[in-house]
């Protein structure tokens, strides 16, 4: 949506002016291209188109999760449970498939658990006014606990539907993407549309701008807040399914710390953690940035374990500072 909205705005404006609200996203895009350019100039194989496709293949589930996180962060909330919900969904699918349930039913159940947990967390956050950080932290413990409770070792998936979904290659020229990538793109498109063109989406922004005002403006604040956690739960569940495609198994310790990756991606994409400003497109860029950083490090292949961490931290730092300096945002609207 951001693009359509962007072009519309550019056309609509009588005189040219810097699209200030989209600036962080544009800066992210620019920096991403620079990073990619560095990779291409350093490593021959980096210029393969497949490298880009791989970034999508390898980060599809993270992207879906980050999209859900975008909704939550736009309202000024946070969802720490996503990593665990992803793992739980994969675990439940694997366990049910092992028990011989039909794949369609498994898919349904797996896709219901995440949103249900999200819904419950949203209700607790809204009705009992407990801080999202804490509620979703408890949700994170809970979902992770369920994982190990289901099985303390990983469960392989051998089901035909799953394996074909996992291994089907959709050829594009010499290169290929997977089914997961298509699903990811659909999720991104739906999310972007929802945020830009539905009342729900606009209410999300309003609540992020000022929750009290949104309430006094007569917006369905409670419903929206519960909805975003449910959406985040749903995205995590989809992410979990994609991850189970990706690894063809459910493992109790998988996706540990994914919530931090997702939050980082959202913020790198220019979304404000206090809520109210940001785009799904930014989140896509954020995930790509993380993916490209990782690809660069693997291509380099000389980094020590600890240097890997330091370099990741350093690149994150460079990226964020540059984005901050280039996309310097007016401290404009009054804080809440």
């Amino acid at each position, binding site marked *: 949506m951001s693009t359509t909205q962007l072009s519309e705005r550019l056309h609509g404006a009588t005189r040219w002016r810097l699209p200030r609200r989209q600036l962080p996203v544009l800066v992210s895009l620019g920096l991403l291209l620079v990073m990619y350019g560095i990779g291409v100039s350093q490593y021959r194989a980096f210029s393969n188109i*497949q490298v880009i496709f791989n970034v999508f293949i*390898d980060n599809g589930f993270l992207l879906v999760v980050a999209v859900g996180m975008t909704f939550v962060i736009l309202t000024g909330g946070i969802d720490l449970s996503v990593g665990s919900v992803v793992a739980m969904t994969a675990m439940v699918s694997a366990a049910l498939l092992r028990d011989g349930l039909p794949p369609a039913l498994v898919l349904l159940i797996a896709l219901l658990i995440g949103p249900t947990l999200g819904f419950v967390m949203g209700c607790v956050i809204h009705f009992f006014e407990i801080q999202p950080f804490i509620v979703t932290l408890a949700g994170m413990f809970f979902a992770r606990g369920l994982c190990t409770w289901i099985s303390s070792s990983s469960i392989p998936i051998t089901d035909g539907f799953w394996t074909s979904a996992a291994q089907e290659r959709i050829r594009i020229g010499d290169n290929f993407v997977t089914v997961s990538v298509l699903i990811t793109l659909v999720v991104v498109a739906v999310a972007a549309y929802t945020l830009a063109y539905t009342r729900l989406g606009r209410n999300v922004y309003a609540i992020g701008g000022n929750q009290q005002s949104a309430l006094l403006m007569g917006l369905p604040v409670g419903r929206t807040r519960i909805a975003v956690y449910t959406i985040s739960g749903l995205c995590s569940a989809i992410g979990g399914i994609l991850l189970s495609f990706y*690894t063809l198994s459910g493992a109790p310790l998988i996706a540990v710390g994914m919530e931090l990756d997702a939050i980082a991606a959202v913020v790198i994409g220019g979304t404000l953690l206090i809520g109210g400003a940001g785009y799904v497109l930014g989140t896509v860029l954020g995930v790509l940035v993380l993916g490209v950083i990782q690809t660069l490090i693997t291509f380099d292949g*000389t980094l*020590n*374990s600890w240097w890997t961490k330091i370099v990741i931290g350093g690149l994150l730092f460079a990226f964020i500072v540059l984005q901050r300096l280039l996309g310097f945002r007016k401290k404009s609207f009054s804080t809440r």
Partner: protein
Amino acid sequence: NSDTGGDAGTGGDDKLVLGFSQVGAESGWRTANTTSVKEAAAEAGIELKFDDAQQKQENQIKAIRNFIQQKVDVIAFSPVVESGWDTVLKEAKDAGIPVILTDRAVDSADKSLYKTFLGSDFVKEGRLAGEWLVEETKSATGPVNIVELQGTTGSAPANDRKKGFGEAIAANPNLKIIASQSGDFTRAGGKAVMEQFLKANPKIDVLFAHNDDMGLGALEAITAAGKVPGKDIKIITVDAVKDGMQALADGKFNFIAECSPLLGPQLMDLAKKVHAGEEVPPRIETEETTFTQQTAKEALPTRKY
């Protein structure tokens, strides 16, 4: 394995390239393993592409994909978890790149996806530990109370060592695990859990720790409780890192099942062989042994890690 020293690899560009994806740097053991691989590669004239997955399977899969893109000659990796490798291994196979597993196995039904597995058998380590205990307590008449310090919940070594140990001690009905808790493979975890074990159970005869570090942590708790480790409470661990061996030699531990991290030279050997298209056995176990207090004293001066 010094026969590889002057291989053809010295010819600059046609140096064999090995992509190696490591689990992480989560323990001293792992670091020794990494060091061994790096040193062996340098020695063997193999160009190593090293990647640290930071304990995440997703990262490992990504790394393998990137290795494929870079068209390395051989891929080796220590899988973070057992399952879930088929897809990416198929891609490697399609690209014609042979794969070697190290340290931990995968559970793929299709054995053609990788050339060989090089590593230790965690179940066996647990079993060795259990068997020693069964032998040691043969003459015991009353019940023998065992407490177990598990590794990180859900991790393969923890699951397997627990399994192997449990199977072995089933041989003697006197042996009973009265408490079992995760100490997360860390000294601090081992100590904190052991403190509570000691308070909850007046009579503990044996401690089985899934690695040396937890055992070393537990050691402190036992001493603080006024008991004598190695005597009042017998301690069995796995790994045989230096500090553990020292404790064993000092009589504070009673038995260690070795889990050697020094896979490097063997791995380089194998890499060359599979690259040359030679047949290799599907499963190669690292040369490992067990240590008692006596053998530890002898081995200690020459330990590398």
